[in-house]
């Protein structure tokens, strides 16, 4: 695929992630921090996010199994997750996290469990979509580099 077509595809894919509400303006701001010395900065931020939060997700799952539920602990966990999710604008994950917090405050166990299932879905979907996006972005950068005159 030629570099122009690749560049267009990257732009379209990113726009689609915006339009579907998966990411917000923060993603662009992080992209703007990329430069020649750190061309994969956004991807590394996202990779770090998923490495960092995978344990949190497990902790929340385990905490939701306990009886009685410790809503303060759940609230602390989701606070941590949301703090990290804001780093690159993971909008849907943040939204589900905010809803989860409301259920924690109301001590609504069923609400917490249902919302957490939705949050995990959004978390996994975003990961999949961003992996595809970054793969395409890498191809576009390679094509761009290859096309430069020696």
């Amino acid at each position, binding site marked *: 695929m030629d570099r122009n077509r690749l560049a267009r595809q990257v732009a379209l894919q990113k726009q689609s992630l915006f339009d579907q509400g998966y990411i917000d303006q923060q993603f662009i701001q992080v992209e703007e*921090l990329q430069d020649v010395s750190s061309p*994969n900065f956004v991807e590394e931020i996202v*990779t770090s996010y998923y490495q960092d939060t995978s344990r949190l997700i497990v902790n929340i799952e385990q905490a939701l199994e306990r009886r009685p539920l410790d809503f303060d602990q759940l609230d602390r966990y989701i606070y941590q997750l949301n703090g990290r999710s*804001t780093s690159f604008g993971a909008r849907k994950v943040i939204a589900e996290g905010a809803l989860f917090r409301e259920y924690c405050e109301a001590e609504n166990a069923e609400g917490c469990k249902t919302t957490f299932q939705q949050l995990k879905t959004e978390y996994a979907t975003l990961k999949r979509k961003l992996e595809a996006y970054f793969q395409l972005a890498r191809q576009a950068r390679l094509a761009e580099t290859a096309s430069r005159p020696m």
Partner: protein
Amino acid sequence: MAPTIESVYLGNGGLSEGNNKRSNRFVKATWKNNLTALVVDNVELCRVLERENLRAYGVETVAVETGEAAVELVASGSTFNLIFIDIYLPTMSGPEAVRQIRAMGVRSKIIGLTAIITEKDEQDFFAAGIDEFYEKPLDPDWFVPIIREVDNQI
């Protein structure tokens, strides 16, 4: 003397805490003064982003992980025009770190950070001595005017 422009070298994957590799990084703003900032955040992901955002706007920035490290740094004589500090830090909380820093007579602009603002957190943090309180992430819409204000006051 013009501020040193530093860039984060990310190496072969994984975030770096920054090893001071100079680059021709484009800086989005320049200031009358050499501005410095301290970032205090125990989440590496957030800490790196906060530092890089400030550096992108021409502020020489140091980032530490704990309230204790921030207090130690200030106690050792390091001075910063701006301090960005998360409310929830392990062992020494953000408010406690701010209390100790203010007790040393530090008059830097201190901006409290949180993932989600609550009324209680806001009260606690302001009582400790912060000047402003914002939700993360750092957004140029609010942090650039703060930097400008500090720059104009020097």
